[in-house]
């Protein structure tokens, strides 16, 4: 045993599995890279150097839903797009989260028409609603921070499928 004596003291920390796992999850949220309308432009701005979402650990936008944790519904969801959005959501691995960004995704926005879904929560479960038309990047960043808080509350002892009440971020 003489080989490992006193050699790892500085390299180990002990904590609950939840803490380690949640820390990893919370600071490596990977969003699905897709947008539906003008909110997507603000979402893209959130990634740029001025706002730099990477500071909060959500920098990797994935073009495949199979590699993503977060779906940002950024824009107007039409009835034609709805089944595609649902399919993307179904392809994401658990645990997964949905941010409804802006008025359209939240409740149809100004489009009270035959072609627009009146709120994306009729298709997928939403964790965070972000107000605004479109929301500023700061608001989207706040959504991510709150989402991280939520992720840190998770425990492997319970199924992540148990829905937590949604959060609403005011503009």
């Amino acid at each position: 045993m003489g080989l490992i004596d006193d050699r790892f003291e500085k390299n180990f920390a002990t904590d609950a599995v939840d803490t380690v796992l949640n820390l990893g999850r919370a600071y490596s949220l990977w969003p699905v890279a897709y947008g539906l309308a003008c909110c997507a432009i603000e979402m893209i701005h959130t990634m740029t150097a001025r706002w730099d979402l990477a500071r909060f650990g959500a920098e990797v936008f994935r073009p495949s839903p199979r590699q993503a944790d977060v779906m940002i519904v950024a824009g107007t969801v039409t009835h034609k797009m709805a089944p595609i959005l649902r399919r993307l959501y179904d392809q994401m691995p658990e645990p997964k989260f949905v941010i409804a960004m802006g008025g359209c995704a939240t409740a149809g926005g100004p489009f009270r028409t035959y072609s627009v879904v009146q709120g994306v929560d009729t298709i997928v479960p939403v964790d965070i609603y972000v107000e605004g038309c479109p929301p500023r990047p700061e608001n989207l960043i706040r959504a991510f921070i709150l989402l991280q808080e939520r992720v840190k509350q998770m425990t492997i002892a319970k199924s992540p499928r148990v829905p937590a009440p949604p959060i609403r971020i005011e503009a």
Partner: protein
Amino acid sequence: MIPAQRDIGSLLLGDLAERLPGAVRELSRSCGECYLRVEPERLKELARFLKEQQAWQFAFLANISPVDWLTRAPRFEVVYHLRSLVFNYRLGLKVDVPDQSLSLPSLTGVWRAADWLEREAYDLFGVRFSGHPDLRRIMMPEDWQGHPYRRDFPLAGRAAE
């Protein structure tokens, strides 16, 4: 000397009276544009003439816009917007859609652009185009009921009624 846009109406009428007599009912002008009212049966023939004649060369079908007059008979009218890129002419063709058939001859054989434009007109207004190779919906979901640009279609959709 190439005739100017403002002169093409009367020149076209003269040319058509000679080569395709009876195809055009009247000429109207609005905001510098000129429109020919065309008989549905002669539409395809006239379209091909306008596209292929060296003096006109309306090679570009820019848009097909149906109009729902709702209380008028016939209820629907379809306007074809043509451009001659060579001479920089603009021309509209107005065609009344027969109420019984709600159908016009397809112009896909003349302009390839008519394919999607006619699908759009069919999807949103319910005007059919006989001879179209693939007359499916293009905007709305395929299982959608109704034609939302008709003036008696509720804006918020049937479900909201």
